[in-house]
């Protein structure tokens, strides 16, 4: 049954890829006195409303979008999740 699914895509820098933004935030937190922050990775969250036959289909089509446009698989990982409700 086709309906609109709310889908979250979380895009983060791939493991091993330099993340200047995350690193700068980590150092700034240290300067503010937050000790023990070992790593910060800065990514982005993209929220889509996708029409599909089921949650699996919504995920599958969103993953295609990620490969093509939303993420750059050369430097970024992404996780696709259907939100409840």
């Amino acid at each position, binding site marked *: 049954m086709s309906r609109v699914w709310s889908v979250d895509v979380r895009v983060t820098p791939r493991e091993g890829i330099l993340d200047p933004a995350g690193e*700068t935030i980590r150092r700034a937190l240290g300067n503010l006195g937050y000790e023990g922050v070992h790593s910060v990775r*800065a990514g982005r969250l993209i929220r889509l409303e996708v029409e599909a036959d089921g949650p699996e289909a919504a995920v599958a089509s969103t993953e295609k979008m990620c490969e093509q446009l939303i993420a750059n698989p050369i430097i970024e990982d992404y996780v696709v999740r259907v939100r409840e409700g």
Partner: protein
Amino acid sequence: MEVGMKVGIVRFPGSNCDADVYRAVTDGLGERATYLWHKSTDLEGVDVVVLPGGFSYGDYLRAGAIARFSPIMREVIDFARGGGLTLGICNGFQVLCEAHLLPGALVRNRNLRFRCHDVGLRVENAGTPFTSAYGEGDLLHIPIAHGEGQFVAEASTLDELEAENRVVFRYVDRRGQATDAANPNGSARNIAGIVNAEGNILGLMPHPERHSLSVLGNTDGLAVFQSLLAAVSRERSHPGDRRTDAAPPGAREFAAGAVAGAGVSS
């Protein structure tokens, strides 16, 4: 009595218009300038603090968000809250907003691209310590160079800014009209620069320091620094009186609440 003024230019890691402001003040105006290191806690007795343009901390997270917590900023905030003349240009404007010294926030340009070119600016309020050497309604050509210069604030804040005559510069076309086409970044109501309620803190996105040297053929920006010099001289001869001739009646009554209350969290 001491004459002239000494301008303190804050250097954050990633500031890159610090030297341009320095040259505008020294070569353009013939006044003194000094750099204030971000890790310092001493304003060295300067008369004016400038937060220059650039990409402090790479503009990572949000433009100005990390610089706002630099050690020097505690002193700058005290200085500004105490009535000290404080000018934030481009990235400096972003820092002032992040520090809640000015209301609103600066977000990505409407077309999502960095833009650098001369814009038309109209002087909306020539009664501030930053603009007294201009005439009301003067049209200026000043460069912009930013990716995140779209000024946004809640409608009530914008209304308040306008009611209190705190919009100092607007983006306008060649005929001086604040049209949508003349708005380079989508700023609310074509706002290019604003002051706080007391009138001692100015933030603007365009770069007056880049048009302050006659060798470059355009000195439309120099009057900002000339105005500051006049204000510093006036302060020295009449200490404590920050009023300027053209200050709108009533503006000062709003002073107390506006600083604390008008910020839009970003």
